[in-house]
């Protein structure tokens, strides 16, 4: 193919098929993808590791497995090791007999074969299945300015915003193809221009806004644009562990309720600290968020349960996966909540999800036994993959994840409401 991009000698050679037909097709895919966004060149990926979105061995993804086999057989594997989104199944998570048959006989029948392919392609390790690969317990933490070929919207927005790395919102397969050729097209969030903010968002709430609600409001308003947020630093203080956890959940909501790939928080995120309001485009629009606006957003979420008054049968927390700090904080909150309501165990089956690395660290702490005592299940599962089962869809499931609400039939509640639901039987 002829490309409008300025390609290096090596890139042209790959495209011309000098390193094999398969690699040429991979390069053609990346070049054509970039050309659609006006990319003028392909730039080297500089991060140590990649991160892929597709972690599930769905029976129906036959074309993907064929493509991956073609890559493996021709030696066109990833130049980087990679982490990947969470596994779809965990026997510790409550599920019914028929539900399990659907999971194991109809949905994720290719899980073992797919994981074998991932190992051949460059999987980091057996524990590298999480959407929060950027946590230190997992170890896939890019540095500021590094160029990535990641997918998984919540990970991309975190890497761009909180870590200052540079990554577009890549699709599954494109993520892998970038690290197979070692280059990604230079456009969008890789460029200085693409990282400028088209929206100024002013936070004027009377208390610290719920991360998942605030992210939802901003995502639905700005869609794929970059917001520059002022007034949130008052509530976050500095970029410490609490703030990083807050921004993890906030960012996932902006990315799933809209299509945000990067946000700047004045006084908090690295580029906002360095450049301040200079990141705002001259004609940036303004969106003011106060208590009433957050309430309006909350009140407008559709409830798609058949019986809107149904008693919840399951609660999921951890989409994206919870941080170590979240697990310890929630263990304390649930323990205190149960004591207050004179309950010994949670009154709704509840699953907390976290990365295998975080779970290992958590299990070294005194909180692990305390959490176990509450009856809460701690799992590495992807709640979305669980909810994709049609029998899960018909279950009344509650969550404080706005991403899970967006993609499934799960009903959203604030953190405080979730705590009441799971600890206090009278609230059911």
């Amino acid at each position, binding site marked *: 193919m002829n490309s409008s991009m300025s390609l290096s000698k090596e890139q042209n050679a790959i495209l011309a098929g000098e390193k094999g037909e398969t690699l040429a*097709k991979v390069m*053609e*895919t990346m070049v*054509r*993808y970039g050309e*659609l*966004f006006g990319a003028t060149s392909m730039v080297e990926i500089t991060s140590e590791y990649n991160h892929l*979105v*597709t972690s599930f061995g*769905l*029976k*129906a*993804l*036959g*074309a*993907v497995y064929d*493509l991956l086999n073609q890559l493996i057989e021709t030696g066109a594997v990833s130049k980087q090791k990679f982490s990947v989104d969470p596994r779809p199944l965990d026997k510790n998570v409550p599920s019914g007999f028929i539900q399990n048959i659907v999971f194991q006989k*109809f*949905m994720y029948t290719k899980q073992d074969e797919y994981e074998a392919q991932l190992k051949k392609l460059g999987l980091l390790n057996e524990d590298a299945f999480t959407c929060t690969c950027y946590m230190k317990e997992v170890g896939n933490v890019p540095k500021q300015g590094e160029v990535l070929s990641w*997918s*998984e*919207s919540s990970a*991309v927005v975190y890497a761009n915003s909180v870590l200052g790395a540079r990554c*577009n*919102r*890549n*699709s*599954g*397969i*494109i*993520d892998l193809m970038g690290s197979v050729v070692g280059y990604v097209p230079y456009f*969008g969030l890789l460029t200085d221009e693409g990282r400028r903010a088209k929206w100024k968002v002013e936070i004027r709430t009377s208390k610290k806004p719920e991360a998942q609600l605030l992210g939802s409001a901003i995502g639905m308003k700005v*869609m*794929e644009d970059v917001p520059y947020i002022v007034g949130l630093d008052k509530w976050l203080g500095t970029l410490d562990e609490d703030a990083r956890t807050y921004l993890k959940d906030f960012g996932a909501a902006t990315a*799933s309720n*809209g*299509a945000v790939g990067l946000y700047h928080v004045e006084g908090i995120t690295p580029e906002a600290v360095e450049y301040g309001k200079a990141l705002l485009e001259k004609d940036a629009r303004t969106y003011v968020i106060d208590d009433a606006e957050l309430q309006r957003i909350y009140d407008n979420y*559709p409830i*798609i349960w058949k019986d809107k008054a149904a008693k919840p049968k399951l609660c999921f927390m951890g989409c994206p996966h919870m941080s170590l700090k979240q697990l310890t904080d929630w263990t304390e909150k649930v323990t205190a909540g149960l004591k207050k309501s004179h309950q010994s165990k949670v009154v709704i089956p509840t699953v907390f999800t976290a990365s295998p690395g975080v779970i290992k660290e958590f299990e070294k702490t005194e909180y692990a036994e305390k959490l176990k005592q509450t009856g809460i299940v701690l799992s590495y599962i992807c709640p979305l993959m669980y909810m*994709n089962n049609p029998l899960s869809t018909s279950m009344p499931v509650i969550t404080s994840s706005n991403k899970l609400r*967006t*993609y499934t*039939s799960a009903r959203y509640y604030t953190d405080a409401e979730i705590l009441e639901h799971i600890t206090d039987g009278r609230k059911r």
Partner: protein
Amino acid sequence: MMKTFKGRVVAAGNVTAKALVSHGGLNTLASFQKAVQFGDKKATCGDQGNTDLYGKQMAGKALCLPRTIGSTTGGLVLYCTASIGRQPACMLFSEPIDSLAAAGAVLIDVWLKDTSMPVVDSLGDEFLNYVKDDMDITVKEDGSIEIR
């Protein structure tokens, strides 16, 4: 009466099909999940949040939309949908294409032999305001769209 629009060619091709219109962003994963997971031949839209498309057949239709939204599995889902022959006849975007739909369009074009899904973008707001479900749409290789 015929009305013509011209957009940018993302994946070239000629096709004629009935229009199916989404005025909001198409959540690819939520919409095509049933088609991919359970082999629904009509690719009935499963996204309850999309009031324009929910419950309607998407396979073989001229899918008219502003953009796609949602999970970064989007491109992969389009690719798999096309690999089992459940894809729309074409995808016609009023806005410049987003990165997830673009990935799907390019993957189908480069990697799936004997499968065609013409994709045209940047057709403008007027296109999406004008087109209605079941209108006859003809897509030409140069990115022109005829609506009857």
